[in-house]
């Protein structure tokens, strides 16, 4: 039988607010445990939540970017369950009337494909339990408790593991693009739960679904799904039933394992949080946010292709995140050569950054410097070979600007025709035998003369001009 997997994603994004969603405590990653948790985050008696407006604005930004329905009134609910890292014994979340309603995300590959987003809601993150082996003692770090999360829920309309990763990447790019989050998965500021079921290819009804929680890399999403889809198909083919449950992915063993059974659904006893009044979404907010939205990746990519003449591949690459696209814009504008700019950013620069373990944001090569470099190539000051040496100097921090590097390395290309002509004359005079051979038909010797001159100029002679000049003078007699 042919089987079809059906996948839906729940993506948790920690929003990049200065303070927590319901308290004034800071949200920086990596602080000492429990140094960024105030009385409200600790759930001390008598404390009350006060909504952080910045979290609302970031969530609305996402909503408007995916063209979602935005309700006029936003409600917060209490989701009740006990866990040691959940200080109040309930999580403030949303149920009805979430801040972002149904919307859609285009794939942005020119195919016109879209993924339906069911909703995105705001909630507070929980703390962290640390189970180090300490004589049976568990530790709790509440720094994370109360960090705003946007939970993005897609429709279950994804049909393979590769596609799931494709869409996860797409949503990751959009989140970065909109500046909602630093979305660093290693710091769990973005993580993904996947729901996956399998059904006979021609059946309309969905199979029983399994949830895989807390996947924090693209690779793990793909591996976990590959394993899980396989497991479910095998299970069904052996005539066994899929039992609804939550599983965790073990990347070392490359398999999913049951976490807790969901045979009877957990009862979270949601009810509207009486500590927070319904929030009325103001028209001005929507207008302001709409005005401030950056051009979205697919729009930007389109314009790179149509007005700058970039290939779709290059344009999509540059539009993966705002930083890269902004960097490209600067380089292209200053150098007046968009195609070369794109090639350098995708090629040498990406390679060098990877080797240095840095990103565009903290790269030593500024957009100004890269633009200068391209200008110096185009005005023939530098050969492409020399340009690479100058570029290396910039990357290693030996020079701070292109012209400084050219001076320091004595790298100016020799393009002056009179100077070149004199060099050619001198070289031809020094090798009369070879000149004779050339003139009697052994034109391959052109390379010999070029080599001689390059050696004499330490490779700085402009090769194009040199070739032309050599031919002209050899053919003269």
């Amino acid at each position: 039988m042919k089987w079809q997997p059906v996948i839906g994603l729940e993506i948790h994004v920690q929003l990049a607010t200065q303070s927590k969603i319901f308290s004034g405590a800071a949200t920086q990653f990596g602080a000492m445990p429990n140094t960024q948790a105030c009385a409200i985050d600790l759930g001390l008696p008598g404390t009350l939540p006060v909504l952080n407006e910045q979290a609302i604005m970031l969530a609305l930004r996402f909503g408007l970017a995916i063209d979602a329905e935005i309700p006029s009134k936003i409600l917060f609910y209490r989701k009740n369950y006990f866990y040691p890292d959940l200080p109040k014994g309930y999580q403030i979340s949303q149920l009805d009337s979430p801040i972002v309603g149904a919307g859609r995300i285009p794939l942005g590959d020119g195919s016109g494909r879209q993924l339906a987003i069911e909703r995105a809601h705001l909630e507070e993150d929980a703390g962290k339990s640390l189970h180090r082996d300490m004589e049976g003692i568990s530790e709790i770090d509440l720094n994370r408790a109360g960090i705003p999360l946007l939970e993005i829920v897609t429709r279950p309309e994804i049909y393979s593991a590769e596609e799931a990763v494709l869409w996860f990447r797409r949503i990751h790019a959009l989140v970065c693009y909109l500046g909602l989050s630093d979305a660093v998965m290693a710091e769990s500021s973005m993580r993904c739960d996947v729901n996956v079921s399998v059904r006979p290819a021609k059946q309309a009804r969905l199979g029983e679904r399994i949830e895989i929680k807390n996947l924090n890399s693209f690779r793990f999403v793909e591996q976990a799904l590959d394993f899980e889809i396989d497991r479910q198909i095998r299970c069904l083919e052996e005539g066994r039933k899929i039992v609804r449950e939550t599983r965790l992915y073990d990347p070392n063993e490359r398999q999913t394992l049951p976490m807790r059974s969901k045979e009877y659904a957990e009862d979270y006893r949601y009810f509207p949080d009486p500590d927070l009044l319904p929030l009325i979404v103001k028209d001005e907010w929507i207008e302001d946010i709409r005005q401030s939205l950056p051009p979205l990746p697919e729009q930007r990519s389109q314009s790179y292709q149509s007005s700058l003449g970039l290939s779709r591949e290059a344009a999509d690459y540059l539009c993966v995140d705002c930083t890269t696209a902004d960097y490209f814009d600067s380089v292209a504008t200053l150098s007046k050569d968009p195609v070369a700019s794109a090639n350098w950013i995708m090629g040498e620069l990406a390679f060098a950054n990877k080797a240095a373990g840095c990103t565009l944001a903290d790269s030593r090569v500024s957009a100004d410097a890269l633009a200068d470099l391209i200008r110096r190539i185009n005005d023939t000051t530098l050969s492409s070979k020399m340009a690479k040496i100058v570029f290396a100097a910039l990357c290693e921090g030996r020079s701070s600007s292109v012209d400084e590097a050219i001076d320091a390395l004595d790298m100016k290309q020799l393009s002056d025709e009179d100077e070149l002509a004199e060099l050619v004359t001198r070289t031809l005079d020094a090798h009369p035998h070879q000149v004779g051979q050339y003139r009697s038909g052994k034109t391959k010797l052109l390379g010999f003369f070029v080599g001689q001159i390059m050696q004499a100029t330490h490779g700085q002679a402009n090769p194009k001009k040199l070739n032309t000049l050599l031919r002209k003078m050899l053919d003269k007699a």
Partner: protein
Amino acid sequence: MTEDISASFSLTQLSHKLKTGELSSEQLVTHCLNRIDKYDQPVNAFITVTGEQALSEAKQADRRRRQGDPRPLLGIPIAHKDLFCTQGTLTSCGSRMLANFVAPYDATVVNRCRAAGLISLGKTNMDEFAMGCSNETSFFGPVNNPWDMARTAGGSSGGSAAAVAADLVPVATASDTGGSIRLPAAFCGRTGFKPTYGRISRYGMVAFASSLDQAGVIAREVEDIAQMLNCLVGHDKRDSTSSRMPWTDPLPLMQKGCQKMRIGIPVALLDRLDGDCRKSFETAVAVLQELDAELVDIELPHAHYGVAIYHVIAPAEASANLSRYDGVRYGHRCDSPKDLEDLYIRSRTEGFGFEVKRRILTGTYVLSAGYADAYYRRAQSIRRLIRDDFEKAFDRVQLVATPTTIGPAFKKGEKLQDPVAMYQQDAFTVLANLAGLPCISTPAPPVAGLPYGLHLQARPFDEISLLQAGHALQQHTQWHRQTPETAT
């Protein structure tokens, strides 16, 4: 001399005496501490007394007064119900669960009192987590009614009401979720006031049922209440539900009285009263009538559902509010738990008393999948109907009058085995919480020698009408001036 002080235990008089120098704050605080020493053991109104700190604050207040500090409440003693967090001293909520809890911050109510120059003498006894109307659920023992020690002082703010009734302190803060200010005030013969929901910040007031909880005051006279409201009312950015409605100082407007006021009486609700209680109520409203108020019969068609839906909504919210007491971060933790589940179960089993457990279970049940529609959501619908009933009534009248309770203070133990009978004590008072209305209980003629209360309710944010009517009544009656013999 000390008896002189007690005889004039209104804030207006005390404030005047402090201003003229006839009395110092130190003398006044010493007087109160002496009375607490002498009378509190049988009454059990206080859980914590902070005498030393109060005396040092009193000396400081006297110094400031001499330097010209004009704040009217400067140097006047107060007591706080033990659910207002006070930095550095115990805030127990009357529970074993918090019998070791010292908050690292002050509630907004406590802050504002301090800013007004009031001096806290300590924390008053209460029903555990404010759940009860007889003060018998307190981990620290019941509060006995100063009028008859065999009877309950009422609850949940029994300690605050009894402390004011026994003249241990001229004024005390309290909180009211279904009647917890007004009922003990009525049982103890004092004036209790619950403002409109949102008038006073809930920050630092340990939550029972967040959509119903409101801080307020118990004192001798309506004028005292007005002075306290001036200090307590106002928006607080730390409580999202606190109101931004402007507040006008009511003191200059108090003399207006209740002339031409239309006062509605929901006659159908009074059927259950016995003859003495009805007579007391009728006598009290007749005084208002003599003062030129007009009495009008009104209907509140859904009012009889009040107690039932209150006991769905309040426990539902409480079940979530009390989830944080899990033995993990603060509060009671059981000895050597085997595992996490054991820690939860035993800490909560040991830390909570019977009534609190009953309400957590009720609340959990009414929110459960399959029951939430029949209970929680239906109760919310009826709550809206009750609010609409009042809105309609307030189209015709300015105030709604009922007795505060169905009877005077009952004997301790009498209703402990019958929770439904106990819950019925709140029949007249829960409506104002459900509808978010301001309300007052002021003494009516005694019933069988025990205090009894007249209960007035107004439309949201119309505290002034309540104060005017209450003040007029007190200007023409003596019921609120009586002091129990046990405390003299």
